[in-house]
């Protein structure tokens, strides 16, 4: 393994690990505060019990998210010092502002978790709301930095150096709003379905359990709504990518030859050597329609761009189709759920529907990871599109396979422990009456 490859693997693994906790950190506080809010409204202790259980889960996940995020902030320099030396002052603003959002998250989560008996109820609820808002704001700022790597703006390139840096223009590069929207929705959808899947599983075991039904209502409500909106946001993003990042669009669609009325290729293997996508399902005019909302629009193929600026077509196309396919499934499950909820005037708990929700549980995070791979692989071989190649950004430090192996072990260990602890929390939940649970709390 070369040092460049080890650096990419280490950074990729760190992000793939962190992104799960980051998404949970955006959505979970919202669920928890919604549960507490319902408790205030209804006075039903089931909602209080739920808020406290979810708060514990949030505490575990947030702590791992905080430390794994710290790893990434250091790894930016440890692995990509040349990228940071160039881009630091251009994308530093969103990161700095994210620092304050992170402060707010940590402060108000501390108050929320440890303040049940120390602050007045309304302040407690407000602290939870502050965690939920600052989590979303954090994701907003971090995504701005990623949007800049995809569509660099706010500077002039002169002899390999950035001149005339305009930090505000760099903070809001073309396409920032689409990417931010897509990321936020994916966080709510992925977390919502994961949580809903767990409670649906337990509801199948203990039908009629009020605790799990309340949990399912909130998680599926928020997650389902996000999953229904996500295809619309995806459409906005695709058209944005078509306009500003045509190479990425061509790669993620497995589209090699520039043509008018381009078909949409579903699935298949995009072979860069043969310059064709094999075994794909072709939908005539589909790509032109999707990318430009015009069946006869011309869509640039990969061949319109120099070969050494192509990403790995095979992986990008597969990851893209995985994201779209999984997202579509989630939207369908959400749609069916909405119809059932409408008919039942309540949380849908039909056994077969619960089975579908259980099956959909992990799909949101799979779609989220696939989508993240699409945008990162799709930008290769560049780390800053059109400005700096990933190979130019890497550290001169050697033997990177050693830290790579070390961090992989660490992530596996943390992942297993988080899974075990969460499962223990969940398995115990919903049996004890709320009042008793409240007394057990630290």
């Amino acid at each position: 393994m070369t040092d460049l490859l080890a650096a990419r693997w280490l950074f990729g693994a760190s992000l793939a690990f962190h992104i799960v906790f980051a998404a949970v950190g955006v959505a979970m506080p919202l669920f928890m505060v919604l549960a507490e809010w319902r408790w205030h409204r209804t006075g039903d202790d089931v909602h209080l019990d739920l808020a406290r259980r979810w708060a514990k889960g949030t505490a575990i996940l947030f702590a791992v998210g905080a430390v794994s995020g710290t790893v990434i902030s250091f790894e930016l320099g440890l692995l990509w010092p040349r990228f940071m030396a160039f881009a630091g002052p251009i994308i530093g603003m969103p990161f700095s502002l994210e620092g304050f959002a992170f402060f707010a998250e940590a402060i108000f989560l501390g108050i929320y978790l440890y303040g049940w008996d120390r602050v007045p109820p309304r302040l407690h609820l407000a602290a939870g709301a502050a965690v939920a808002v600052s989590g979303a704001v954090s994701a907003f700022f971090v995504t701005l930095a990623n949007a800049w790597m995809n569509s660099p703006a706010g500077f002039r390139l002169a002899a390999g150096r950035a001149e005339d840096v305009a930090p505000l223009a760099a903070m809001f590069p073309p396409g920032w709003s689409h990417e931010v929207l897509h990321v936020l929705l994916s966080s709510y959808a992925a977390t919502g379905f994961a949580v809903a899947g767990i409670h649906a599983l337990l509801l199948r075991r203990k039908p009629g359990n009020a605790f799990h039904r309340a949990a399912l209502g909130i998680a599926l409500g928020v997650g389902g709504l996000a999953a229904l909106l996500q295809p619309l946001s995806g459409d906005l993003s695709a058209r944005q990518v078509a306009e500003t990042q045509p190479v990425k669009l061509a790669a993620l669609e497995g589209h090699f030859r520039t043509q008018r009325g381009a078909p949409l290729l579903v699935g298949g293997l995009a072979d860069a050597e043969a310059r064709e996508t094999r075994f794909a399902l072709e939908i005539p005019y589909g790509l032109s329609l999707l990318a430009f909302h015009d069946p006869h629009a011309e869509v640039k193929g990969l061949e319109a761009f120099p070969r050494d600026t192509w990403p790995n077509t095979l992986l990008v196309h597969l990851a893209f189709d995985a994201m779209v396919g999984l997202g579509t499934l989630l939207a369908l499950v959400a749609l069916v759920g909405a119809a059932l909820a409408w008919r039942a005037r309540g949380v849908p708990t039909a056994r077969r529907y619960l089975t579908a929700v259980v099956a959909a549980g992990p799909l949101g995070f799979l779609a989220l990871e696939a989508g993240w791979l699409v945008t990162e692989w799709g930008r290769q071989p560049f780390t800053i599109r059109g400005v700096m190649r990933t190979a130019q950004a890497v550290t001169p430090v050697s033997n990177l396979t050693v830290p790579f192996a070390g961090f992989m072990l660490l992530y596996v260990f943390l992942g297993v422990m988080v899974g075990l602890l969460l499962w223990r929390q969940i398995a115990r939940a919903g049996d004890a009456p709320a009042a008793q649970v409240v007394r057990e709390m630290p």
Partner: protein
Amino acid sequence: MTTADLLGAVILAALVAYALLAGADFGGGVWDLLASGPRKAEQRRLVEHAIGPIWEANHVWLILVVVVLFTGFPLAFAAVSTTLFLPLVLLLVGIVLRGAAFTFRTYDDHDDRIQARWGLVFSASSTLAPLLLGLVVGALASGRLRVGADGVPLAGQLAGFSFFTLATGLFACALFAFLAATYLAVEAEGPLAEDFRLRALAAGVAVFTTAAASLALSRSEAPLVFAGLTARRWSLLLQLATGAAAVTAFGALLARRPHLARAAAVAQVTLIVIGWGASQYPYLVVPDVTLASASGPRATQVALLVALAAGAVLLFPSLYLLFRVFKGERPFSVVDRRPARRA
């Protein structure tokens, strides 16, 4: 004063906050590791109780330092990351394990053996992290991290390790343990308070010993810092003030006046961090990277200062609330007030 100087001052201030807050959290972990005597379990419980609600917020000061560094001084960030790759990776491992183990212990089974296992990971990594932090600071000051004009390290990966940086690592460890013990001596009651008073005294001796060793070694291994610490008039003044704070803290512990000891320890640590910054000013990495040479564009530095000021308006009231809620029973400067006094 240039914008670079102002940003340098912000970084130093954030490091002071990090040392006073997160430093004490690490120090708490050291006392978890060294818990002993008949009240071993109570000592550990007090540490857990003291840092539980606040450690994550305290940790963010480090993130703030990192982002301000790479936004304002990108070349310094690149230089530090490449020359200190190995200690920084180890520091990260310490930070990750500390935070994860502390949280896992809180939410895992209350079975004694499981608790003890997580406790060991938590306390060992709490000791490792400040050791590496002190080592990194010592290395930055040592003058051995030579960096080429393009940020490429000229020194080997082991340049950060020397007897001097070992001494500064141990010094940081001792200092954080001392700070934590003076805080805990106030927060504890009865015989537990006495436990931490004695621990603070012992740590005070360790602080003095490791500080003396660092100073002695800096003469040969970090000559610029030695010169900065001893030759300039204002730095001598800082040294005197630090010494006075240290003597006051030690004396107050002996006189069983824990509140005074805590205030003096806070002053002492603040002065030490400022003294370090002053002694290596204007260098970020001695002797090749300065505030000016590492600076990014001025437009960014100005925007960053504005953003920091705006963020501070949100941050400080929130922090005040946090400390007011959890440390509120103890009178401690601005962050808390006795509820009785408000009534």
